[in-house]
């Protein structure tokens, strides 16, 4: 170990309480609030969804946020601003290092695809304001608007073929977003992030309020539907869903991903607090701002307008489809749609930037703390890494597959990271000591039962979420990574289409599936020989081979993403281990109470 004196970077602090609240709220408020929430809520019981949603908010969201804020502020007292440093300082064990690496990998990996969505929002805002969409819609006519938007999105986002995004303006827009994000980050926490969020958050909330007023005052009547029908579709409860565990899982997931807990962002941001800065109120304020954007703004704009103008069936569960296929079509029918559409996507762009910069800061802090890099060097290193990652995700753009799979693995890691942080807070640091630490400088104290909630209830809830989430999503995703299974499915789909063409009466999915199994002679996958197939079915053999090859290629992309994320994690873990054993350990040795060999917790 080097014995040379350490040159520690100057530690920044937040300039104001409002600044840190808006910065953390900005990191949480993003596309998920305005697009994912309404899509999830409306497809899971409407108003009834709010019951499991608010219970998850109380039991899962708020306690984990308080844990992260406390851990982060405590880590800041040890001179650490990055997940690996903070969690190593508090746990001094392998769990801390493993979870610390997760809190670096998740935001950086999410940034790699999030920046492309940020660029897409910017593009749409520009298209609305410049009249590009108006021209497109005029050419398409009222009946062809939905298809025209779908075609535009698929072309712009390169969804038809891998590498297609490289040919268009998206590449330059992504580059522009990189420049904006890294410029803000380069300016630092106070002059960059805080200053930007103090401007951007009120601006985006103001824009959203204007769009909200526009939607709620719509007087259009479309096929007998008014905006009141749209609100009814969104908020009328279907109480039967409360018995469905999947709805509870989705509510918990929505809260979890929306508040950005487990990400490592709160950990990083709160480490720039002062020792006696209030984390209870600050955390609650950031969470409530997020809820304002989600429940009030997100819950009353997109779905009511979609139901009014496009009718039922226009509110898919998919965030991407709802946001980039449905919303532009809605805006076409809305009076003043060009202006409000431009404003809507402009506010989504701002929301995306405030989130993006929060995803970069943990890695910047790690490079500075762990390796003593200056701001310029750390920004350059991170820009290169994220640009390579974003470039790969942009290249594998067919069906947004790379983005989708990266998002899936990041969600999985987020649950693990949150579980790790709650475990460190409740069991390593000690829930009672942890809550005492949370209460330090607090405007109001946490209730006495909170240590029990954090020690038992929240981890149990998280474990349940992890198990259910894996059970619901895992099998499909694992199948999606198997070229053999996906290839067989691809070929089978071609045969199924041919069989349906031959037997048009088979409208029911089940009846068609039975017929396919009967003709192909196997319950799943493909027959080993084509000899027993009817001649008309053998005629589509070449097409089936193409379908098989296409699906196998997609499965290989899914594998590539999995291996990439895994290697990225292992690499970050190795690098953070080196940093923890080296510079971070030396830093801790110089902090009173930070002796790396001392026992921690109780």
């Amino acid at each position, binding site marked *: 170990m080097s014995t040379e004196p350490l040159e520690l970077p100057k530690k920044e602090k937040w300039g104001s309480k409002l600044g840190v609240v808006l910065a953390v709220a900005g990191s949480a408020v993003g596309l998920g609030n305005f697009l994912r929430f309404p899509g999830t809520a409306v497809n899971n019981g409407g108003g009834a969804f709010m019951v499991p949603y*608010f219970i998850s908010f109380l039991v899962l969201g708020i306690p984990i946020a308080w844990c992260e804020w406390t851990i982060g502020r405590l880590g800041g*007292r040890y001179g650490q601003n990055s997940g690996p440093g903070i969690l190593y300082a508090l746990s001094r064990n392998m769990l801390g290092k493993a979870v610390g690496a997760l809190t670096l990998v998740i935001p950086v990996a999410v940034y790699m695809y999030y920046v492309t969505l940020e660029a897409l929002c910017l593009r749409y805002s520009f298209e609305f304001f410049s009249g590009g969409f108006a021209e497109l819609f005029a050419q398409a006519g009222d009946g062809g608007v939905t298809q025209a938007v779908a075609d535009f999105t698929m072309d712009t986002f390169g969804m038809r073929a891998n590498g297609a995004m490289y040919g268009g303006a998206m590449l330059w827009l992504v580059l522009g977003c990189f420049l904006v994000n890294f410029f803000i980050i380069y300016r630092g926490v106070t002059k960059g992030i805080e200053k930007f969020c103090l401007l951007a958050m009120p601006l985006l909330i103001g824009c959203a309020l204007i769009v909200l007023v526009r939607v709620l005052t719509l007087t259009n009547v479309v096929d007998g539907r008014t905006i009141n029908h749209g609100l009814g579709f969104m908020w009328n409860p279907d109480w039967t869903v409360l018995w469905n565990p999947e709805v509870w899982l989705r509510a918990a997931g929505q809260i979890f991903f929306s508040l950005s807990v487990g990400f490592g962002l709160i950990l990083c941001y709160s480490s720039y607090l002062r020792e006696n800065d209030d984390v209870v109120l600050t955390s609650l304020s950031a969470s409530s701002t997020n809820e304002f954007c989600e429940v009030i703004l997100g819950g009353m704009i997109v779905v009511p307008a979609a139901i009014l103008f496009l009718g039922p*069936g226009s509110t898919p569960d998919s965030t991407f489809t709802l946001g980039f296929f449905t919303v532009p079509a809605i805006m076409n029918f809305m009076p003043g749609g060009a202006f409000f559409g431009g404003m809507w996507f402009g506010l989504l762009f701002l929301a995306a930037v405030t989130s993006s910069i929060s995803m970069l800061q943990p890695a910047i802090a790690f490079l500075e703390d762990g390796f003593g890099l200056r701001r310029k060097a750390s920004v350059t290193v991170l820009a290169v890494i994220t640009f390579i990652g974003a470039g790969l995700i942009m290249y594998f753009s067919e069906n947004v597959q790379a983005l989708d799979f990266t998002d899936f693995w990041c969600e999985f890691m987020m649950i693990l990271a949150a579980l790790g942080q709650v475990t460190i807070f409740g069991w390593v640091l000690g829930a009672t000591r942890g809550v005492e630490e949370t209460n330090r400088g607090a405007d109001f104290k946490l209730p006495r039962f909170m240590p029990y909630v954090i020690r038992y209830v929240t981890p149990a809830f998280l474990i349940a979420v992890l198990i259910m989430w894996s059970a619901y999503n895992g099998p499909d995703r694992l199948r999606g990574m198997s070229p053999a299974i996906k290839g067989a499915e691809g070929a089978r789909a071609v045969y199924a289409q041919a069989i349906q063409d031959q037997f048009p009466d088979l409208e029911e999915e089940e009846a068609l599936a039975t017929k396919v199994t009967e003709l192909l002679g196997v319950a799943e996958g493909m027959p080993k020989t084509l000899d027993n197939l009817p001649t008309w079915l053998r005629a589509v053999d070449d097409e089936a081979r193409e379908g098989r090859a296409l699906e196998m290629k997609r499965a290989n992309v899914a594998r590539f993403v999995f291996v990439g994320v895994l290697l990225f994690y292992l690499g970050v873990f190795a690098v953070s281990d080196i940093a923890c054993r080296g510079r971070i350990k030396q830093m801790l040795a110089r*902090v009173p109470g*930070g002796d790396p060999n001392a026992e921690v917790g109780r």
Partner: protein
Amino acid sequence: MSANLLLAEVQELGTAGVMLMTICVGLVLFLCAFCFWRILREQKPSEHHHAPLDIDTRDADS
């Protein structure tokens, strides 16, 4: 479930919907108002306590 919901007849906002919407919006607005009122109200400057973990970063030396 999703398919059933999507095919369901679109109804106007009913009493239960209005109540749920009002409660949810009210709860969130109350929480926001409470938090921001506490944050934005004039705070007394806190006394400076010398923290046991004050870090000497030696930045002042350079």
